[in-house]
């Protein structure tokens, strides 16, 4: 793209690269190295650039002395279930929008899509009393259901735009063979749609995994708490914050989502940017 044969071009290019790269990656490097330092090395006015003595003590403390494992389990349960729920709902809705024509289809679709812009905090104001009424406050189910707010609209749109590209002939041919529409969807369309389905699942999972606001409000008891508020209450609510422990715990809770993401990122980026770029 750019011609980097001249010296000025090289300097500008690599200079910018170093600056932005530093901004992007140094915080991550700092999280990792800080988690490996002991307190004597961590709390110094002039910090060491790398851990002179590597210790895993922070990880050990985070796992054994805090409730991190409980929080992680809770997050896995709520995020996993809500991602599954969202994906299933969005699968049928997306297919319906893409392949059927009925009265009100387009307005409903647009309305659903616009819902991603409803402020989450505003919805919570009325979700909270609603959940109290039906006894879902402080339950994992309540949290799972409220996570529909985050991902259902976008998930539906992502699957809709994928299904729109599935040729109608494929469905018509199977219909001519006498297969029912649900059967066609389950045995023909879903098997060829695994990449977008995985993308939508991960997208939805990520939203719930990262959530702080809803979990902090809906969940009251400590044994049901998820990682977002769990981390915050463990490490920053005390007078003397344990930064080494916070960094170690941060790494531990980021690991599952980062691993899943790295594995599937190609599909993921295609799915998220689809529609915006042609």
């Amino acid at each position, binding site marked *: *793209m*750019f*011609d*980097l044969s001249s010296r000025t071009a090289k300097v500008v*290019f690599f200079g910018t690269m170093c600056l932005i790269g530093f901004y*992007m*990656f140094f*915080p991550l490097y*700092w*999280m990792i190295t800080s988690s490996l330092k002991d307190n004597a090395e961590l*709390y110094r*006015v002039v910090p060491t650039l790398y851990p002179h003595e590597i210790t895993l003590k922070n990880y050990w403390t985070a796992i054994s002395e805090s409730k991190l494992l409980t929080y992680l389990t809770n997050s896995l349960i709520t995020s996993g279930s809500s991602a599954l729920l969202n994906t299933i*709902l*969005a699968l*049928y*809705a997306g*297919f319906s*929008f893409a*392949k059927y*024509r*009925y*009265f*009100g289809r*387009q*307005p409903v679709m647009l309305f659903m*899509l*616009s*819902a991603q*812009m*409803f402020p989450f905090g*505003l*919805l*919570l*104001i*009325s*979700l909270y009393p*609603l959940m109290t009424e039906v006894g879902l406050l402080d339950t994992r189910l309540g949290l799972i*259901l409220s996570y529909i707010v985050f991902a*259902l609209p976008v998930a*539906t749109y992502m699957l809709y735009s994928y299904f729109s590209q599935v040729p109608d002939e494929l469905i018509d041919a199977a219909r001519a063979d006498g297969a029912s*529409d649900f059967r066609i969807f389950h045995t023909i369309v879903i098997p060829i749609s695994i990449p977008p389905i995985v993308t939508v699942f991960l997208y939805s999972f990520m939203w719930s*995994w*990262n959530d*702080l606001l809803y979990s902090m409000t809906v969940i009251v008891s400590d044994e049901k708490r998820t*990682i*977002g508020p769990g*981390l*915050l209450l463990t*490490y920053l609510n005390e007078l003397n914050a344990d*930064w080494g422990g916070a960094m170690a715990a*941060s790494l531990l809770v*980021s690991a599952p*989502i*980062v691993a899943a993401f*790295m594995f599937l*990122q190609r599909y993921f980026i295609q799915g*998220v940017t689809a*529609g*915006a*770029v042609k």
Partner: protein
Amino acid sequence: MTNLEMTGGFRVSPLTRRGGLKGVERRVGMLMLLPALAAFSIVIVYPFAQALGLSLFEYTLQNFEPTFIGFDNFRTIMSSPEVLDSFIVTVIYVGCATAGTVVLGLGWALILNQPFRGRGAIRSLSLLPWVVPSTVSAFIWGWIFNSRYGVLNALLLEMNLIDVPQAWLSTPNGALAAVVLTRIWRSIPLFMAFFLAGLQNLDREQIDAARVDGAGNFAILRDHIIPHLRPVLLVVVVLGVIGGLQDFDTIFALTGGGPVRATSVLSIEVYRRAFEQWDIGMASAIGVLWVATLLPPAYFYLRMLVKGR
């Protein structure tokens, strides 16, 4: 013809032999939509409508029976400097964060579009700031901005840019800068991904031709790359503004809206009113104004999606 358009392009031709089957298919389609629509109505539409309604009521911890007071909540907001401050903070936050992310995200995408060894790995790693949970990013930046042991103070002292360590998160401007920098850091990856996708179908021959005509790097950027990326730029700005207006988690974890109210954006303001002061009516009213702020970018976004189909 007009009738057809009004029903959303749904066609009933008297010539089709499968007129009866079509009816069945249509019902199957509606059946498939039903579960999502039900969930959507209960969890999103109903609470939204109710919040709109509650903005017209007095509904507080002292007064648990909602009383209709018309537009009084909005009148209170108009004469309340706190809410006005919150609006200003939100505009600064969203504006600075979006502008900063566009510049840095575009720069980073252009760099990663240039072939060099290890590019694939850097591209993958660049997505990390976006993937780590919001609480984690608040922890990372809180530690960097720490007033006593933070690496930022150490760095600036070393470079002689400051004389004494700064308490970044305890001063209004420092805290606002910190939440903006954290937000930019978190959103560069997504912007970069959009820009990289847009750069893929750039017309290389056109650029080569321009280069033969003597155009330099800057001229190519200005005359070819940026105009080519304009549609992507629009999408990214709209998504950035919507995302910024929605943002709560990182700000809450990093500063809690403080010091005092320096980083109290609308999302934080609504949360505080509703769940710390239990003033549901006022919280809903501020939320309604928040929705109004979101409407213009939302409109553009939807229009783009509809056009793009």
